[in-house]
């Protein structure tokens, strides 16, 4: 990386940005971490609350084994150490949406230790970001301040939902790296189905620690920015927070360790609480729960059963399908995208299939903001479209029109081609008629062509296409025209 890209430019010289992330990922599970209540998103307030989630007197937590299974798989997918003994602690603080008055979390002995994520950057390089730990914890409920002019309402649907907190080392040096880290992490979690990664629904949230320093110097004082719910906001928050810190220092001040909030409308970070106001959480082991003890063989079995991870899949796509590393990278970023591609490529030219997915389909999804899983076009349907091109039933140009309609309506390609009469004209007699007419009405150009102005060949092709509304089989038109013009 070039010096100028690596450092931030201040008024007094270069600054290095240092970023560490805490990602809270909601565990995919049927029930909450310590109660049997359901975890569906968007349910009416307080409809997914058990007696345990509401912290009724005398209620006790019981660990949901599915959540243990999921976090262990996540650790294994990040090449991390799985701790065979871990402990749940209580993090004590008062808040209306925290019914117990404490959050059950893991503090001194988390279930997953050191691991790493290899992050791919846009310039084609990659970086290794170390994972410090992953622990399991309960989510809190939600305070609703906008339901009543003077009252705050509390929705406990999220209370007790299992979260994995994935903590990185301060290994990132730019907002881009932080963004790439979150995208890669999300891709891995989606591949192994331990978190759906839907940041806008809150099932993945980031807290980011930002500091700046002169190149080569020790870490500066960090600030934490809480609760960022998109990659875009994360990157913007890092940019404006680092700019703020540089300005503070360059104006002779010093950065104070504190917790801040990002305001996406004003594109700035704001003080939430200072270090002095920080809670003393009085962590201690939860006496209602026994330590979590895992069998080494069970962990080994989960490791063996892990599905193919994004980097492995990318290497296979390059090798098996002959794709470029870049295309393969795009395809494996989301597991459903990779699956779509593989089912499309089956029995077809894989590069052709990749071009359709990367070029047309993803472009369309991006433009319309539709997610692949809710797109109206299936891999089978897109395959049929590609087959029509391959079988010379339609031209590539027509295919793009057909694709647009398929994307919008979900209709089959064959039906669209029929309904709109878009089938390629491959009838030599019919094409000959068109050619006769064109050559006759353009006898001057025919003469010029024959005199050596070969560029005009394209003009004749275009005229035939125009006369057939673009449906003429271009290969056939070429052959017929060459035949007619050569004698």
């Amino acid at each position, binding site marked *: 990386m070039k010096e100028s890209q690596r450092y931030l430019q201040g008024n007094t010289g270069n600054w290095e940005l240092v970023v560490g992330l805490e990602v809270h990922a909601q565990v995919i599970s049927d029930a909450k971490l310590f109660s049997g209540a359901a975890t569906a998103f968007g349910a009416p307030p307080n409809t997914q609350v058990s007696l345990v989630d509401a912290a*009724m*007197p*005398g209620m006790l937590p*019981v660990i949901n084994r599915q959540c243990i299974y999921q976090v262990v798989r996540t650790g294994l997918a990040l090449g991390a150490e799985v701790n065979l003994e871990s402990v749940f602690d209580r993090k*004590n603080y008062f808040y209306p949406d925290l019914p117990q008055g*404490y959050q059950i979390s893991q503090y001194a002995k988390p279930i997953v230790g050191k691991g790493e994520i290899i992050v791919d950057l846009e310039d084609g390089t990659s970086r290794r970001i170390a994972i410090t730990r992953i622990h399991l914890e309960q989510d809190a409920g939600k305070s609703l301040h906008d339901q009543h002019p003077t009252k705050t309402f509390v929705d406990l649907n999220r209370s007790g939902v299992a979260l994995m907190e994935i903590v990185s080392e301060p290994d990132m040096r730019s907002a881009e790296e932080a963004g790439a880290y979150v995208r890669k992490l999300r891709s891995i979690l989606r591949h192994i189905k331990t978190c759906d990664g839907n940041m806008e629904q809150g099932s993945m949230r980031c807290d980011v620690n930002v500091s700046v320093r002169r190149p080569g110097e020790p870490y500066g004082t960090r600030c934490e920015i809480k609760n960022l719910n998109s990659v875009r906001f994360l990157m913007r928050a890092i940019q404006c927070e680092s700019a703020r810190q540089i300005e503070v220092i360059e104006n002779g001040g010093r950065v104070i360790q504190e917790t801040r909030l990002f305001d996406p409308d004003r594109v700035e970070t704001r003080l939430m609480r200072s270090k002095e106001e920080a809670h003393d959480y*009085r962590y201690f082991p939860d*006496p*209602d729960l026994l330590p979590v003890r895992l069998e080494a063989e069970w962990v080994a079995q989960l490791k063996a059963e892990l599905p193919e991870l994004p980097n492995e899949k990318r290497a296979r796509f390059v090798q098996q399908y002959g794709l470029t590393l870049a295309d393969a990278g795009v395809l494996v970023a989301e597991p459903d995208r990779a699956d779509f591609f593989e089912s499309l490529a089956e029995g077809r030219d894989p590069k052709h299939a990749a071009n359709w997915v990367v070029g047309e389909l993803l472009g369309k999804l991006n433009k319309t903001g539709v997610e692949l899983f809710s797109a109206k076009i299936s891999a089978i349907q897109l395959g049929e479209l590609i087959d029509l091109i391959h079988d010379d039933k339609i031209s590539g140009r027509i295919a793009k029109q057909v694709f647009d309609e398929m994307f919008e309506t979900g209709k089959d390609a064959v039906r669209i081609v029929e309904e709109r009469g878009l089938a390629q004209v491959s009838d030599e007699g019919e094409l000959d008629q068109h050619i006769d007419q064109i050559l006759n009405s353009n006898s001057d150009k025919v003469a010029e062509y024959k005199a050596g102005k070969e560029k005009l060949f394209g003009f004749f092709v275009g005229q035939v296409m125009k006369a057939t509304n673009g449906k003429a089989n271009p290969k056939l038109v070429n052959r017929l025209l060459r035949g007619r013009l050569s004698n």
Partner: protein
Amino acid sequence: MAAEESLIGLSIAEMRDGMRLGEFTAVDLAEAHIAAAESVRELGAYILETPERALEMAAASDARRSKNQIGTLEGIPLAIKDLFCTKGVGTTAASRILDGFVPSYESSVTTNLWRAGAVMTGKANMDEFAMGSSNMTSYFGHVQNPWRRVGDNQPVTPGGSSGGSAALVAANVVPGATGTDTGGSIRQPAAFCGVVGMKPTYGRCSRWGIIAFASSLDQAGPVTRTVRDAAILLRAMAGHDAKDSTSVDVAVPDYEAELSGDMRGLRVGIPKEYRVDGMPSEIEELWLEGADWLRRSGAEIIDISLPHTQYALPTYYIIAPAEASSNLARYDGVKYGLRIADDDLQVQYEKTRGAGFGAEVKRRIMIGTYVLSAGYYDAYYLRAQRVRSLIADDFNQAFEKVDVILTPTTPHQAFLLGEKLEDPVAMYLNDVFTVPSSLAGLPAISVPSGLSDNSLPLGLQLIAPAFREPTLFSVATSLESCAGFVSRPTIVAKKT
């Protein structure tokens, strides 16, 4: 009615046999015990009497009996400590902060009892959130011990925290009651009231639905007038419960079948560390006498050492308040119970908790908050946990040499109501003999064994290895028959 006259004061076993023989019905028992409660209301031992429910449950029990569906506690009237959540019946933990709280669920232990056929007569008074050794901390008024000293009529403490349970059983208001024991809360009031109180192994009874005081110590157990009744009652209370992660999956034996009282070959340990300074000679003498009874019954008496005993009390008064400070955080005026509303959230918390909790509960929340605070955690909580495992090791080593340990239950007789309130440390010293086995999670029982010089009851305690309740009950039977404790309290329910 001649039959009914004898219904008050019967043991659980006698009631069971009487109903089996058709001498009386569950409804007869319920009516007699409803009247019994009315006759001694001055004791303040119930927070809530539930006569309608008792009659309903008794009628249902009689109906089951007529179909030959007979549980192990079929038709037996029981009082339930007000720390057990009972569905549709107010449950307060004797605290203002839960005044008016009616659970929509039933604790696992009481569920087991109702399944065994028992009949609830009411919710027994207690120290607030089970914190106390005097029953003076209840928001619903103190409980009086049915016993009086010879020569004066001053009210005496029943002990605590299960003081209501012990007083009700002692005064013949019920044959049995549930209690909970965190550091002696069943055994100490049992000793003060001259009844049997038993704390099982930690994990033996489910804690689900019992309002938590200190999670790693709380255990439910029976309060009865005889050892046999304690065995019958515990069998019905105990059992594994998937809803309590600390409940242990060990089969529940038929404890009553193991009450042989055969002491031959049994080794009884006498720990030298339980001779504490200032302990009245009458306690020491009773202890020696108890050892002598067991020796004459065929047991071998062995002097043992539990070297870390002196650290048990300070350890307990770090761990229990630490857990309590966190367990009681849920009483915040947001979801249920008392709320003293204020526009400022922080002020609402302060007003609600300030008014909702009594002085002793506040003291323990503050101690607990302090010992868990950053900078103090290692010095207090962590160190206390280490000492706790040393105390458990003491017992493990002792139980290589002996089968059961004999000690006094308390270092002195019951004190007067209101005494020691100004000196919490003196109050905490009540638990000096009961706390070590609580910290080690071991089963222990208090058996009424004699009277003090001024005629208040005194108890002896037996401690056994984990899940050796059968041994405990068997030795307790022997102790009970040797002691021949037949004295009755001054105030007992009137026979109707």
